């Protein structure tokens, strides 16, 4: 059975790129447009991994990660944040919010899959 990845990003372009890379790697992809939408989607979805952007309207990535970690049903789901290489402060803040790891953007599809395999059985 294919693993499910929830992608949370306000950029349509980024969601499509993630969809292409992940579906080519055999994952099923569920999408959300921002953090608030992501928490709504999690009421019905049971992803194996979550990938989230940080800068989003309504609820940013930090708020979303804290929301997931506060939810008993999903608190053990690995969460990878999309971040630029130079964003050390954002990586640190995401880590403190409860992020499992990160993916550097613009992302390399191979490294994306490697990062997912590193955190998901």
């Amino acid at each position, binding site marked *: 059975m294919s693993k499910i990845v929830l992608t949370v990003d*306000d950029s349509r372009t980024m969601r499509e790129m993630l969809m292409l890379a992940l579906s080519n790697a055999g994952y099923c992809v569920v999408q959300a447009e921002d953090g608030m939408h992501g928490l709504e989607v999690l009421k019905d979805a049971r992803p194996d991994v979550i990938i989230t952007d940080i800068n989003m309207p309504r609820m940013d990535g930090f708020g979303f990660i804290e929301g997931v970690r506060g939810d008993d049903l999903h608190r053990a789901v690995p969460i990878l944040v999309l971040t630029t290489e130079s964003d050390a402060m954002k990586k640190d803040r995401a880590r403190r919010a409860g992020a499992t790891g990160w993916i550097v953007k613009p992302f390399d599809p191979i490294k994306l899959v490697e990062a997912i395999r590193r955190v998901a059985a």
Partner: protein
Amino acid sequence: MDAMAAIKQTFFQECEEQLGELEIGLLVLQDGDTDPETVNAVFRAVHSIKGGAGAFNLDELVHFSHVFENVLDHLRAGRLAASGDVLKTMLRAADMLADLVRAARDGTAADTGRRDTLAAELRALDPETAGKDLDSGHQDSYGDDLEGPVFEAVPISFDDMEIESTPDEHQFIIHFTPKPDLYAKANETALLMRELCSLGEAVITCDFSRLPVLEELDPEGSYLSWTIELRTVQDENAVRAVFEFVEWDCELDVAQVDAAQGLDDTALEALIEKMQATVEAELAAPEVPPNDVQDPMGRWIATGTLAE
């Protein structure tokens, strides 16, 4: 049309939307609106354009939007005031950004002189770089990126090169003790061990000595540690990279012990002491039949003996 070409079209459509949001947001700010969400929206518009441009290697667009984004970051952090002059510059920068988007979309050339002038004006607004001499070129990362790095020819000689047919194998001793936060962030030791094993041959030993009796066990605690002897052709950076997501949430010691790159005397003595302590503890423990240890999900953790 292939998938990436279709996504690129989506990107340019999205850019037009973002440029619209950017202009509206800047005009609202110019009218005196100080709502932080307006500033955030303006920042996100430029940030999104930069992110997508990077994915398609649209370097001119990346560079200009990066300079613009930096200044907007200062604005939203309160380090730069949204004065009339600042917003006028930003509105002109937004126009330039639009020109660069359309040039990238249409494969035409943008006005580089105007681009450079506006980039300089934006940098002059940046409280971290304003007033600094950026004419030395190499200190200006934007200028470097536009003109390319400076290369100096370095003569090389093939005379002493040895071509190795097989890479050297290295041996590492790794001590790994996860902290509770590692598991709270959904990292798993079993997956880390799996990744280490993919680098070469690994012998993994689990230390149960800190495991308390059941009544005292905190289900969110962390009581196990691992020693891994790894033989691999990879270097130490590759070994440490396995732990890059968890380095703040564990105690980690990686020591290379192969003869080609030995430890210094102090590190070697410390390693020998650790190994002696481990051996002495194992010898002192009563013999117990080995067990496969599994986590609550039934997944293998290690084969070892439980300390009493």
